[in-house]
């Protein structure tokens, strides 16, 4: 089991800073995700770890070995880092059979024949791909190709496995199956996995810890639960979740917030006194009721969109001076709503997110 450490790593492409002074420690045997929108630097970070790109500043350690140190020019090329990497498009060599693809790394590293065959047998069994080892990649379905790509990396016995959006090319159903499979493989092999994705569900379901990135900087490193329930800043809050988050501007005084058309009290950690804040609530974190309750505001239902188990309500705040709309994801069992109704929307105080308007940091 091997750890991976990044210390103050910066990577520029021309004038663009792709990764900006990034420090991370990935624990041995951990399933760690890098999550963020496209262009946030997550793939670059992975490529830096793999040795496919070189950082301009900082150090990277794999285990106890310094593989990159920009200060003294140390650079261990990718071919000597003994990592595994699953590419987004699988990067299966189209001119080789499945078998040749899987055995390539072992051949290049001059592993003995007997050993090679043993590991090969093991891995094709593990991934249930015995039936098509003689085929060429283009004769396989996307899911099968995905398994081959995994097999190719597992067979080398690399301690650290990098995965670059490995599931993004699969259809939704297969993606869920493969998620389960990946989780199983991780548990079975105990390898350190660094997983790059822009899909928060993948990151949430698979990771033990994750880093949310934006503009080359890490926004939050935490467990999936913490990232979801306690986003470190406004960006993470708005990035996590199925639909776009509702935000309300307000002013924090003592432990209460006064806003346009609403007010809440009992805010924890409300030190620092009087300042402008943003209250954020995901549609799931609001609840519509017929009667007012503490921390609720009055609104008129504009449209009602049934979604199976839940119903999306699109409402207009009635007590705000400017026109403001809010989305509420309402449990279906909470009753029937009709456009034009006036209802009360209540904040869930357990999961209320309050951010400093200036620093965007969580309060």
């Amino acid at each position, binding site marked *: 089991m091997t750890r991976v450490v990044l210390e103050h790593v910066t990577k520029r492409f021309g004038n663009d800073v792709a990764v900006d002074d990034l420090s991370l420690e990935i624990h041995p045997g951990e399933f760690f995700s890098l999550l963020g929108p496209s262009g946030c630097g997550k793939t670059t970070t992975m490529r830096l770890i*793999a040795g*496919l790109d070189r950082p301009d500043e900082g150090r990277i350690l794999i285990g106890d070995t310094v593989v990159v140190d920009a200060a003294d*020019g*140390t650079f261990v090329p*990718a071919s000597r880092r003994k990592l595994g*990497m699953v590419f987004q498009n699988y*990067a299966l060599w189209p001119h080789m059979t499945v078998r040749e693809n899987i055995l390539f790394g072992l051949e*290049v*590293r001059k592993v003995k024949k007997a050993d090679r065959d043993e590991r090969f047998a093991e891995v094709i069994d593990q991934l249930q791909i015995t039936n098509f080892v003689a085929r060429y990649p283009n004769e396989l379905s996307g899911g099968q190709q995905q398994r081959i790509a995994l097999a190719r990396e597992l067979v*080398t016995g690399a301690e650290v496995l990098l995965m670059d959006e490995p599931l993004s090319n699969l259809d939704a159903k297969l993606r869920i199956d493969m998620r389960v499979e990946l989780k199983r493989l991780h548990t079975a092999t105990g390898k350190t996995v660094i997983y790059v994705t822009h899909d928060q569900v993948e990151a949430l379901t698979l990771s033990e810890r994750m880093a949310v990135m934006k503009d080359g900087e890490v926004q939050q490193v935490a467990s999936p639960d913490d990232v979801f329930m306690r986003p470190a800043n406004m960006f993470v809050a708005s990035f996590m979740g199925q639909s776009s988050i509702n935000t309300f501007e307000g002013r924090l005084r003592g432990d209460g917030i006064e806003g346009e058309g609403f007010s809440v009290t009992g805010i924890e950690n409300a030190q620092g006194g009087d300042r402008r804040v943003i209250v954020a609530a995901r549609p799931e974190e609001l609840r519509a009721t017929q009667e007012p309750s503490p921390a609720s505001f009055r609104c008129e239902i504009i449209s009602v969109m049934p979604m199976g188990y839940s119903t999306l309500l699109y409402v207009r705040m009635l007590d705000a001076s400017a026109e403001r709309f809010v989305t509420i994801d309402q449990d279906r069992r909470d009753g029937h709503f009709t456009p034009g109704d006036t209802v009360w929307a209540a904040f869930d105080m357990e999961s209320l997110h309050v951010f400093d308007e200036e620093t965007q940091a969580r309060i």
Partner: protein
Amino acid sequence: MSQPTAPSAPRANRRRLRRAVNAVKLWITTPHRWMGWLFLLVFGYLILVPVGEIILATLRIQEGDARRAGGAIGDWTLYYWQRTFTGDLSRRIFYEPLMNTLIVSVGYTVLAMTIGVTLAWLLVKSDIPFKKFIGFAALIPYIVPSWTIALAWLTMFGNDRVGIGAPGILQSVIGIVPPDWLAYGMFPITIVLAINYFAFTFLLSASALATIDGRLEESAELHGAGGRRILRAITLPLILPALGSAFILTFAQGIGTFGAPAFLGIPVRFYMLSTQLYQSAGIGRFGDAFALTLILIVMAGLAIVMNSMMMGRRKQFTTMTGKGSTHRRVPLGRWRWPVTIVTLLFVSIAAFMPITLLVWQSLQLQLGNFGITNLTLTYWIGEIDGMRGIVADPRVRHAAWNSLIIGLAVATSTALIGILTGYVVAKGRGSRLARVVEQVSFLPYVIPGIAFGAIYLTMFARPVGPLPALYGTIWIIILAAMVNRLPFASRTGISAMMQIGHSLEEAAEVHGAGFFTRLKRILLPLSKRGFLAGFILSFVSTVKDLSLVVLLVTPQTMVLTVLTFGYVELGRRQFADAIGVVIVVLVLSCTWLAQWATKTNPLEGFGGSNR
């Protein structure tokens, strides 16, 4: 590993040393960088240095001119430029050839464009039948060397007023004496080059037409536009930038061409820049020749600059989606059969007439006698006036051997260099080094073949840097042809490498494969097709080339094309025709081989529809 205190002097030195060692290690393990620099150095040496030498050569008094130029050999002088631009002879050695070149080039380009665009429209957009055959036949005149078409022209339209006076078919069989303007000079050169190049414009405009999203035209139709209206209002404006670019590229391709102007122009003292350059070099006036060389380079360069401006504007046309999945077929209606017949007739004549005429004339015992009884195999396998037929002549065999060796050497080296250049450019995408390598590798494009020959003739007549004197060896031809082919080879290589995509190589790298393993196991196998296509097309264009080698060969390094030229100069048309037939057969079969082997249209890279 930690350094608790401030670094002392030896420690700082050690760190500096380690940095240096690491930098070297990194350099070695980053092949696309050192290869990039290596290529830059080699290409620079083989391209920029020669051009620099030429520039200097026009500014210094050359061998044999000391008396006329009034100085000592090697003295700085503007003599050549004055002679070219303002001297008594400038009209003859520059302005007239320049005007001839411009008129002929504009003429053949307009003609080739007209034919090429019409053909492209018919094949891509209309419901004309026999598309496959037309497409196939239309490419043949482009594959065969232009001088074979020129020879065939003489066989058809030659008259007895010029040269040795062997009449062509028109005079001999039909009894009409073709006037000089029809037999020789500007008119036939224009026609021959138009026939040679229309396939090029055809390819360029066909690919442009094919990328037009058919839906655009369909929506115009839904809005009630008629066929002609759609053509004028939608189709033409959309492909106009591509057509402009095709125009310039066609123009640039031909301004330095030598074969047809030599065969059809020199006998009536009609000179273009290329033939004037050849003549000046032939009488040892290298100063004059080099001035013309530079002028040709500048002209081609200007054309390319104009083209890149044109292509730059083309980007605005975002409607070019790149995949025109919907193909609209315009019905030709009652014009269908007349158009079909004319088209079939035209492409058949352009494709098969020259070779037929060459075969026929190579079988004539007495030149210009088109009777059946005059047929003989003498010029192929017999002996006449102490000259043996081409099959039995050791000189021909020697030349064929040279052509083969040179062709293979050039093909192998350019295909490999092309792939590696492609690697450097694709891998270093976006880096300045990659961009400069790409641009430098493209530079020879603006140096017309004959100008290139002139440059290499001087540059490598004596030992230069690490290279010994190459003049008189086949190496000078191989080197010149290699560099001449470089733009095409690197383009093929770049597109092959771009298609492979980074991740395939990176996956191998992560698996522990060093550069040479990746090259051998991943990159070369994956670019096999590009490599093969590049190989065969390099071979074909080297074997059929006359412009480049005409100044470089010597009797020991004689190649087939120059031997042919020599036979024409000697008035031995039948020998020339016979060798021409051999070259045409070789060139056509190799191209089809490439087509078959790569399952692609090799002409894409041939004339460089992608350049």
